[in-house]
């Protein structure tokens, strides 16, 4: 059975037409519409052609949700779909090979509104092509397949390619195979300085330093790319870069969220994450510790600390709430985070009713919920005023980080002062019966459930303990078809800008289909075979020829593959919020590269917390007082995160508010971003600091501008660029020589002490730096 599925899946995928059809689908391009009825795939694949239609247009009433099922018909299960219709004896929705007798076909083609499917009031409609696909599928025998993401991944043979010279590793065979089939050529190798910049940004979140550029590009004729990769993977900044993404998954914040949104001390958990990434902890272990570190035999304090992952959710401090309502919300949050963040599933859809698209019942949901239901916690532990008065910054259960821990197992925690720090963690010391909750409501328990994980994904083995440790074993079981695929896909998205499955958060029926399914599977299996080694996986990706292509878009490609589905060119994407700020700190020379510790408060427009707080005395996060000195220039992952008003320099560039687990940020382009880059104090101070330093060290204007250009863009300016910037600089040199007052005003931005002997020169050069910091190229990985 399984073999058949795989053969069908992969056999079909090899065909050229599918690639093109697939492109149309993933792009949501309109060509589908205009192509009309005649452009059908030669052979129909259930998973790639039929199921997306059935899921999106039919499952809401004829799918897994038993309560909402109409006419007793379900189309997500083969036997049921092919059975006699219970409310229409003698008739069948689907009779294989006989589309004329299949009720499904007559219902979707009819013009009679009372018979029509989907019914007009659903506002859903099938296109002609979709109708014809369903018809052809039935005529070809109406074969069903298991959902692609639930079929265990297998390593297939590397695809054949004509150009044997191009591939550098396995990834390239899969990519080139498709590129060749659609008649493209891969792009040429990116220039060295582009490549080192891309690599440094991807693996450390920071641009390369001038010294690194010199070492690897300028001074070294024998440019060793692999050595470069190893170098960046070994930098401590690597752990910080990886942590930045994981904080979104873990909905990490320095405040409790909700109404009063006061302070919490979860930052030692964040320090652990950095440590774990830098130690290259295998992903299965990384997950196990976070899900169930406290339940491991003789659990160490470090393993317990890791479970803070599941206490990062918002916790209310609003006096008068109903305790159980919120406790239940926290348990759900953990369940949903497991779904979205680790399994790539929309489990939360099955909280109030059976899932409408994927094979999960409400009972399945609460069986997972049961794993997280035994924490000895309260919905409301203390209101914000009480918590403030008692300096209570972690709700039980928690562990206390003592000074002596720092000399031993927890040495990675950057604890600056001697005040003890409490960190919220998991325990299982308050066993509760778990029930299905009617409509998901905390006060409507129905059937009792036992902790378990959905069989539809992979069986929860009898020898797994029925607690979170068992859940972790199930997650990291080699037979689990999702865990590795989902993480591999997310790292792929981090490196290439979008996932092989574009919906990195949803591998279910309504999610996007993989553009390169065999590649995803190959990588997932390879990852597990190499002991879930994250650095190994990243190295595989970044040493591929695919990755090393130039990101220049040819006019032809812009037309045929605007979204770069085929990866016949390198990635080109705007940097994330943290990376943009860190970029400015690094290139200006302001960056303080200290690792870990309590979160810091860099510049923020004044008044934001004050205008929206609850009135002064609720909690300790009512006024924002920026830090001073070195603390201003820490990497952005250490910026204090208040959930109800996250740092605007982050949210303007699409950072989420961290109320919920997020795995995919938007990449927008807005006028508010333009304003932030032009006028944020930190950008201006960076421009000034860089200008000051260059002014001190170079007397020649051309040299000064070239040095600045090198620092910010990591390449030499073209003659034309240099000429234009020189002219611009000249204008301001003249202006500021006459207008000392404004020059002084301009350079007096920021707290960093002014240290220049030539105000006009510094101001003029600062204008140049501002132009450079606002270039699209500067804030783009290319």
């Amino acid at each position, binding site marked *: 059975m399984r073999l058949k599925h795989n053969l069908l899946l992969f056999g079909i995928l090899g065909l050229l037409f599918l690639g093109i059809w697939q492109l149309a689908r993933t792009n949501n391009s*309109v060509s589908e519409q205009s192509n009309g009825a005649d452009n059908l795939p030669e052979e129909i694949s259930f998973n790639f052609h039929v199921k997306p239609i059935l899921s999106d247009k039919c499952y809401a009433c004829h799918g897994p949700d038993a309560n909402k099922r109409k006419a007793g018909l379900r189309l997500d299960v083969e036997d049921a779909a092919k059975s006699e219709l219970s409310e229409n004896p003698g008739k069948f929705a689907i009779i294989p090979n006989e589309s004329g007798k299949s009720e499904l076909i007559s219902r979707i083609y009819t013009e009679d509104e009372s018979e029509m499917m989907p019914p007009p009031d659903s*506002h859903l409609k099938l296109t002609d092509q979709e109708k014809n696909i369903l018809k052809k599928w039935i005529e070809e025998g109406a074969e069903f397949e298991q959902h692609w993401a639930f079929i265990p991944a297998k390593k297939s043979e590397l695809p054949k390619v004509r150009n044997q010279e191009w591939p550098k590793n396995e990834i390239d065979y899969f990519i080139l195979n498709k590129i060749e089939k659609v008649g493209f050529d891969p792009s040429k190798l990116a220039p060295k300085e582009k490549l080192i910049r891309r690599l440094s940004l991807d693996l450390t979140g920071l641009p390369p330093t001038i010294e690194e550029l010199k070492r690897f590009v300028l001074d070294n004729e024998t440019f060793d790319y692999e050595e470069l990769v190893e170098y960046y993977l070994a930098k401590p900044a690597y752990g910080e870069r990886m942590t930045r993404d994981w904080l979104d998954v873990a909905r990490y914040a320095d405040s409790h969220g909700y109404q009063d949104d006061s302070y919490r001390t979860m930052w030692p958990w964040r320090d652990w994450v950095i440590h774990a990434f830098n130690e290259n902890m295998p992903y299965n272990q990384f997950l196990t510790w976070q899900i169930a570190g406290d339940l491991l035999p003789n659990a160490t304090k470090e393993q317990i600390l890791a479970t803070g992952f599941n206490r990062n959710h918002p916790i209310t401090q609003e006096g008068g709430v109903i305790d159980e309502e919120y406790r239940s919300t926290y348990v759900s949050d953990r369940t949903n985070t497991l779904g979205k963040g680790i399994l790539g599933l929309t489990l939360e859809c099955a909280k109030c009713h059976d899932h409408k698209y994927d094979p999960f019942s409400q009972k399945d949901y609460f069986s997972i919920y049961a794993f997280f239901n035994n924490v000895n916690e309260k919905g409301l532990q203390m209101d914000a005023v009480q918590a403030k008065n008692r300096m209570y910054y972690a709700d039980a259960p928690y562990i206390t980080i003592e000074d002596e821990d720092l000399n031993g197992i927890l040495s990675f925690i950057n604890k600056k002062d001697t005040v003890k720090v409490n960190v919220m963690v998991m325990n299982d010391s308050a066993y509760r019966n778990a029930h299905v909750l009617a409509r998901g409501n905390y006060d409507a328990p129905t059937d009792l459930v036992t902790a378990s994980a959905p069989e539809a994904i992979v069986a929860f083995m009898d020898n797994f303990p029925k607690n979170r440790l068992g859940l972790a074993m199930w997650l990291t079981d080699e037979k689990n078809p999702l865990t590795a695929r989902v993480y591999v896909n997310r790292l792929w998205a981090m490196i290439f800008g979008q996932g092989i499955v574009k919906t990195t958060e949803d591998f279910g029926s309504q999610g996007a289909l993989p553009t390169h399914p065999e590649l995803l599977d190959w990588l997932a299996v390879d990852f597990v075979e190499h002991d879930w080694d994250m650095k190994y996986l990243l190295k595989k990706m970044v040493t591929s020829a695919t990755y090393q292509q130039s*990101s*220049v878009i040819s006019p032809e490609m812009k037309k045929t593959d605007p979204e770069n589905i085929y990866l016949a060119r390198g990635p080109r994407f705007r940097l994330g919020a943290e990376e943009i700020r860190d970029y400015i700190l690094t290139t200006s020379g302001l960056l303080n590269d200290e690792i870990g510790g309590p979160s810091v408060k860099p510049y923020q427009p004044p008044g934001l917390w004050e205008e929206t707080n609850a009135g002064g005395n609720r909690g300790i996060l009512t006024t924002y007082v920026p830090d001073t000195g070195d603390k201003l220039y820490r990497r952005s992952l250490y910026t204090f995160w208040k959930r109800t008003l996250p740092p605007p320099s982050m949210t303007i560039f699409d950072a989420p508010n961290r109320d919920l687990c997020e795995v995919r940020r938007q990449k927008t382009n807005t006028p508010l971003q333009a304003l932030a880059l032009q006028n944020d104090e930190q950008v201006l101070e960076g421009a000034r600091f860089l200008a000051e330093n260059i002014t001190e060290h170079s007397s020649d204007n051309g040299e000064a501008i070239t040095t600045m250009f090198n620092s910010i863009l990591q390449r030499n300016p073209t003659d034309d660029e240099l000429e234009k910037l020189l002219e611009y600089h000249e204008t301001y040199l003249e202006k500021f020589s006459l207008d000392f007052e404004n020059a002084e005003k301009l350079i007096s931005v920021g707290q960093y002490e002014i240290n220049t002997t030539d105000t006009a020169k510094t101001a003029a050069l600062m204008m140049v730096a501002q132009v450079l910091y606002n270039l*699209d*190229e500067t804030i783009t990985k290319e």
Partner: protein
Amino acid sequence: MEPNDELMNEKLNINRRHFFSKLSVGLGTVALGSLMIPGLFTRRGGLDADMPMLGVPHFAPKAKRIIYLFQAGAPSQLESFDYKPLLNERMGEDLPESIRNGQRLTGMTANQDQFPLVGSFTGFKQYGQNGTWISDYFPHIGKIVDEICIVKSMHTEAINHDPAITFFQTGNQNSGRPSMGSWMSYGLGNENQNLPAFVVLTSRGKGNSQGLYSKLWSSGFLDSKHQGVLLRSGKDPVLYLNDPDGISRSDKRMMLDKIADLNNQHYHRVHDEEIQSRIAQYEMAYRMQMSVPEVMNIKEEPESIIKMYGAEALIPGTFAANCLQARRLAENGVRFIQLYHQGWDQHGNLPNEMSKQALDVDQASAALVLDLKQRGMLDDTLVIWGGEFGRTNYCQGRFRPDNYGRDHHPRSFSIWMAGGGVKKGISFGETDEFGYNIIKDPVHIHDFHATLLHLMGIDHEQLTYKYQGRRFRLTDVAGNVVNDLIA
């Protein structure tokens, strides 16, 4: 062609992006070396700023814009618009169990062994053609009663502030969904090329207040260009709006031209349309730097107008100033103007706090309605006034007729609306004589949302966005348009 077909939406987005990038080339050329901004403040100014979703409006809209005067913390309906003399007659008596009927209570009153009824401290008078009862705290609103529609039968499920206000703003008690204003921006596009479609203004009263959170104006899973932009009263009305010290407007223009020039050079090397889009965003930002301070400058308002809104209208950051601001934004084509006034959470000390809160908002709220009317804008501007739930008819804490508090009451509360195609001079819905349960025409938040969208020309079942495999709506899976409210 289906109006809500995601494929078509996607197509539209692609077109929009291309359209925008073409547009930007033209714009950049026009703007280069020029300080003149053509069509500043003219709606549509010859160029479509942002296109609406295909197929919207679904029918002719009655309202073109909404000004929502949100009263955060939940003002008591029993001291404002829902007159219940029985509570004064039975002052101090325990709330009959038959009336309470098992409603869940917050943790603040759940342990009270008694629920003593408490009547309004302030008096009520009749206003307008229908002799509508309105409390003495709100005399100005009393005077415009023939312009407004009071809904006395609002209800919600949420019983705490955070979920309740989140529910009102996003249609769901949990965070993560787009705000009402974001849905409108997504559905209807932007009418204005110099200002955002959805703006937020906050103010704080003297009463016990609850925090506000940026998630209330978040675009959730919609594109973040639909998120509410906070307009603030300080020197930076929009975050990072002001140029640094030492730089003039002409310096800024020169800088933008230089940036655009270098960006264009790079575009010709790498051919990514995103670069053109960025150039366009920089131009929009430049225009905002002019248009936002312009629209927020109330100095040009005549004295007669300041008099209408009250002297506080001259103090930036007050509710009165924000109301006046709202009118100016409405005039300039902003589609959804969301005000929040904090301080309505009277668990105790209600008579004292509520009189102050009412003083903050009464005159300016009424003035806004009258001002819109005299400009002929009330017909297509919907003004809404109200909080996130109501307050209990019984006293919280120790009972004293002259100084009491009221707990949260989600089961019935009052809001009012004016203009924008809503019937005027009516009261809709009724509560029982205890002011506890709704006995006629209940309006749920989902119904309220469905009605708002309807007034804006949108079928609430058709304005959907597919996210995580599901088609989301502002009204989730519920909501009925309350046709009896519509003129």
